[in-house]
């Protein structure tokens, strides 16, 4: 039941993206190499914490952690990463349908860990 509720939220909340959130938009599908979108993880934020993607378009999220082995758990995709400082962690995504895909730090990183989350907003 909980999963069902969250799945509905994924769709419904796509139109409710917070105005304060930093947004990166992925471009149209390109031939050849996928577009690379850079992201920084640091206590207690992802920058940007909201990234627009286009359904069916493959992208690479290149994540650099500055200060901690933050986690990046994407439950809807059954995927998680450890973001080790000093290296770039690459996440390949090709979302298939419009909606919202949330991610959260799942390595406890201190007083503010609970605020460390973000989302991919997938447009048609």
């Amino acid at each position, binding site marked *: 039941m*909980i999963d069902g*509720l*969250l799945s509905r*939220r994924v769709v419904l*909340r796509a139109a409710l993206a917070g105005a304060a959130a930093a947004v990166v938009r992925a471009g149209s599908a390109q031939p050849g190499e996928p577009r690379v979108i850079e992201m920084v993880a640091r206590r207690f934020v992802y920058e940007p914490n909201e990234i627009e993607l286009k359904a069916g378009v493959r992208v690479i999220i290149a994540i650099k952690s500055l200060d901690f*082995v933050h*986690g990046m*758990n994407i*439950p809807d995709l059954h995927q998680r990463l*450890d973001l080790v400082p000093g290296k770039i962690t690459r996440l390949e995504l090709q979302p298939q349908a419009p909606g919202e895909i*949330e991610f*959260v*730090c*799942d*390595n*406890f*990183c*201190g*007083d503010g*860990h*609970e*605020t460390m*989350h973000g989302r991919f907003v997938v447009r048609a």
Partner: protein
Amino acid sequence: MDRRHFLNLAAVGGGAVFASGLAGCAGAQGTAKADSNDFYFVQLSDVHWGYEGPANPDARVTLRKAVATVNALPTQPEFIVFTGDLTHTTDDPAERRRRLAEFKRIVADLEVKTVRFMPGEHDASLDRGAAFQEFFGDTHYTFDHKGVHFIVLDNVSDPGARIGEEQLAWLQADLDKLEKKAPIVVLTHRPLFDLAPKWDWATRDGAQAVALLMPHENVTVFYGHIHQEHHQMTGHIAHHSAKSLIFALPAPGSQPNRTPLPWDAGAPYKGLGFREIEAEDAGRTFSVTELPVVRA
């Protein structure tokens, strides 16, 4: 005794059942059959000593008031458990120890002296449990009380919320010594099942612990972490989370973020509290009574 409105948490016939019921104090009102092995204990959780913020402007005294309320219970529990997040996290190791020491001094005023502690991620994740162990000893252990086997699992000393292979092997070895019908209570901080992974309300390898427990017929889990009462079954295993003593959190998945529910000045301590847990039927069923921080 003044325990009433028990929530019967027994799994009936393998189904996921929480049958509400009125069970007066066994013996005192003559409505329930008393068993010499029946007992009750108190669970307190998520104290977050050291927290300062608008979600609880009364944070400096809330724990002391809860201690006084426990001490005023008409019948004292046989023991007390704290299911983690004794302190609010800090990057400063000295401050962490100061908070643990203050917490320990305050709860030393509990009249019941058999108190079991376990860490939450706020206590243990930033130093892998080092400071906690200095004050309270092992982060995972077992004890027995009137035929019930209690297992304390540590799913927080690893910042990635893993129990870990070593502790899982220890759990397996402990369970191997028990009869399949033995009453077992697991005490831990995080939910062992995926309650809300998007809110980090899970244990990464919790499913492995549940799988080890599954062959045992009488298993009940009491935990904290989510700052609210919650009841869920995984097969025949019941999982019950406790309220906090610092601030309440929203229902799982009910809003985008897991921000604390605002303090209600008109109803201080709303959503906070602790619970009595009554073991019945030789520890095969449990009844819970939720109590507020301050009783009228």
